[in-house]
C-alpha cells in the first residue's frame, strides 16, 4: 500500500502573530514552526499504522522552502519512509493542490491523507482540490479509517451522529481527531531520520489565482472589570448602563 501524507507547517500555538509588508505577509520573526497537528497526529500516524499492519510505504510531502526541512525531518523521525519537498513558497490552496496532485499523478498512490485543516489559515481546501485535480473521491473530516484489501471503511462525524462510508482506493482523505493517538518520535527514529531520503522537487508552472490584500488582527480584548461578589447591584448597573446588554 503506497500512502502519501501531505504535511504543512504551522506556527506553534504559543507564537505571537504579527504581519509585515503593509499587513500582506505573516511575520515569521521568532516564530517556532511545527507540523500542522492534524497532519501529524491524525493523517501521518494513521498512515503509519496502516503501513505497519498491511505493509507498504508512507511518503510525506510538503510544499515549501528549505527552511521547512527540520519540520519534515520530524515526520521522518516519527516513522515516514521518505519525504518530498516541492520547492516553492505556497501562496494559496489551489497552487499547493496543483503541485501535490501533479506529483501524485506521476508517482501513483493508493491513498492521499492530509489533516482536515491547517491551524493557521484553517482553509480546509487542499484535500478537496487534490481530489478534484486527480478525479478521485474525497472524504473530508474523517475520524476513522480501516482498510480491508483495497476497500476503506471510513467514519465521519456529522451533526448528531456519524456517517460511515466505503470507498475503494485510490482516494483522498482529510483526517480529524479520533483517527489515531499522537506519537512522539524516539531517539532511534530521530537518528534513523538522518539517513532517510528528503528529495527536493522543483515545482511545475502555475499561475497564482489569488493574492493577499490584507491581514487584520482581531480587536484586542477589553480590560476586565472586577466587581465585588457582595455588590450585585453594581454588576447589574454596569451590564444595563455601560455594556447595555440587559
Amino acid at each position, binding site marked *: 500500500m503506497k500512502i502519501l501524507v501531505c504535511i504543512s507547517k504551522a506556527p506553534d500555538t504559543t507564537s505571537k502573530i504579527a504581519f509585515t509588508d503593509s499587513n500582506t505577509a505573516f511575520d515569521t520573526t521568532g516564530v517556532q514552526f511545527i507540523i500542522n497537528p492534524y497532519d501529524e497526529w491524525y493523517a501521518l500516524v494513521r498512515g503509519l499504522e496502516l503501513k505497519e499492519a498491511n505493509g507498504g510505504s508512507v511518503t510525506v510531502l510538503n510544499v515549501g522552502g528549505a527552511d521547512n526541512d*527540520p519540520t519534515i525531518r*520530524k515526520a521522518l523521525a516519527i516513522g515516514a519512509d521518505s519525504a518530498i519537498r516541492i520547492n516553492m513558497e505556497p501562496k494559496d490552496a489551489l497552487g499547493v493542490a496543483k503541485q501535490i496532485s501533479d506529483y501524485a499523478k506521476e508517482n501513483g498512490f493508493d491513498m492521499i491523507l492530509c489533516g482536515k485543516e491547517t491551524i493557521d489559515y484553517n482553509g480546509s481546501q487542499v484535500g478537496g482540490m487534490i481530489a478534484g485535480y486527480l478525479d478521485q473521491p474525497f472524504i473530508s473530516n474523517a475520524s476513522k479509517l480501516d482498510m480491508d484489501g483495497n476497500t476503506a471503511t471510513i467514519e465521519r462525524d456529522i451533526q448528531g451522529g456519524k456517517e460511515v462510508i466505503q470507498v475503494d482506493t485510490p482516494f483522498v482523505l482529510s483526517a480529524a481527531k479520533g483517527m489515531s493517538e499522537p506519537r512522539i518520535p*524516539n*531517539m*532511534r527514529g530521530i*537518528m534513523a*531520520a538522518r539517513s532517510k531520503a528528503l528529495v527536493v522537487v522543483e515545482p511545475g508552472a502555475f499561475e497564482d489565482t489569488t493574492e493577499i490584500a490584507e491581514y487584520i488582527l482581531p480587536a484586542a480584548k477589553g480590560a476586565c472589570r472586577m466587581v465585588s461578589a457582595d455588590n450585585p447591584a453594581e454588576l447589574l448597573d454596569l451590564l444595563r448602563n455601560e455594556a447595555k446588554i440587559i
Partner: protein
Amino acid sequence: MASDRFQAPDYYHLDDLLTEEHKLIRDTVREWVKKDVSPIIEDAAQKGEYPIHLNKGIAALGGFGPYIPTEYGGAGLDQISYGLIMQEFERGDSGLRSAASVQSSLVMYPIYNYGNEAQRMKYLPKLASGDWVGSFGLTEPDHGSNPSGMITNYKDMGDHYLLNGAKMWITNSPICDVAVVWAKNEEGRIHGLVVERGMEGFTTPETHGKWSLRASRTGELVFDNVKVPKENLLPNKSGLGAPLGCLDSARYGIAWGVIGAAMDCYDSALRYAQERIQFGKPIAAFQLTQKKLAEMITEITKAQLLTYRLGQLKNEGRATTQQISMAKRNNVDMALNIAREARQIHGGMGIIGEYPIMRHMMNLESVITYEGTHDIHLLITGMDVTGHSAFKG
C-alpha cells in the same frame, strides 16, 4: 498541578548552535515531559513514590544510555544530546533525571566501558529497555567524600567471590535488579562487581523520611557474605579512577540537568510576576522583582554556555574531571539560588504544589550534595589551579 505552560528561555539564541537533531531530541523529550510527567509528578512527590511506569517512556525515548551504541540497545547519541535529554528530564523533576542518570552513567557506562562483551550483551539491552533497573554502590556510611577509604570488600574463594559490606544513599536501591558495586579485593584495590537481585545475602533496605527527591527511591545495598560469580567482575578497569570515570559522566549530566530545574523555576516566576497584581500593577514592574528575574536569566544563560562548551569538549574526548567539577558545582548552585529566589517571587503560592518551585528547591538540596559535594568540587578546582590538595591527607 496546573497545566504545564513551560516555555524555555534562550536569551543568547543558543538554539542556533544546536543541530536540527539536537533540537528535535530536546523538543521530543520536552513534549513527553509535558504530556506524561508534569500531570503526575507533584502527586508522586507528595506521596513519596517513584512513578516507575515512566521507565517505559524513558526507555522508549532512548533516555536510558543515550550515548551507548545501538548494538547494545542504546541510542548512539552524542554528549550534547545526552545533556539536553537530562535537562528536559530535570525540568520535570530531579528524581526523574536521577533515575535516567544513574541507569545511564553509573550502571550502563561502567558495564559498557569496563565490562567484557558477555557482560555488555547480558545487561545493557535490558537496562536500555527499562526492563531492568540498575543502581550504583560507591558511597558508604562512613565514606562519602572519601570513597577510597571504603570498607566493602571481596575475597577470592576459588570459584566465586565473597562480598561483604554496605553502601548508603543509593538511588533506586529498593527497586534495582542489578547493582554495580565498588569493593576492595584482598590487596586493597577497588574493582567493580555486578550484583544481581536474588543473590543470597544481598538486601536493599529503603531510606525513609526524605524531604528531597521524594519522587525517587533511595536506600542501602547490604552485602552479607554474598557469593558473586567470578564472571560478574568488571575486568577492564580497576582503582578509584574506575568509579570516578562513571561520576564524570553523571556529573556532566547533572550540570545540564539542573539547568532544566532552573528554567522551570524562572519560567514559572516570570509568568507569576506578570500575572500577580499588587498596588495596582504586576509585581514584575517592581525593581526588586526585576532584579531577581534579571539575575536568574543571566545565570541561566551563563550556565547554558558553560555546558554547551563542556559538551563540545566531551564530544572530542577532551573534557577533564576538573572542568566537569566546575560545571556541576556552578550549575547546581545556580539552580538552587534560582529556586529560592523564584520561591520569593511566588510569595505564599511558592510553597504549595500547584507550582513546581518548592519541589525543585528541595530536590536541588540533594543534587548539591550528591556526586561530589559543593565544597569538594570547589577544592577540586582549587587543587587544579594551585597544584595543592586541600582535602587529601
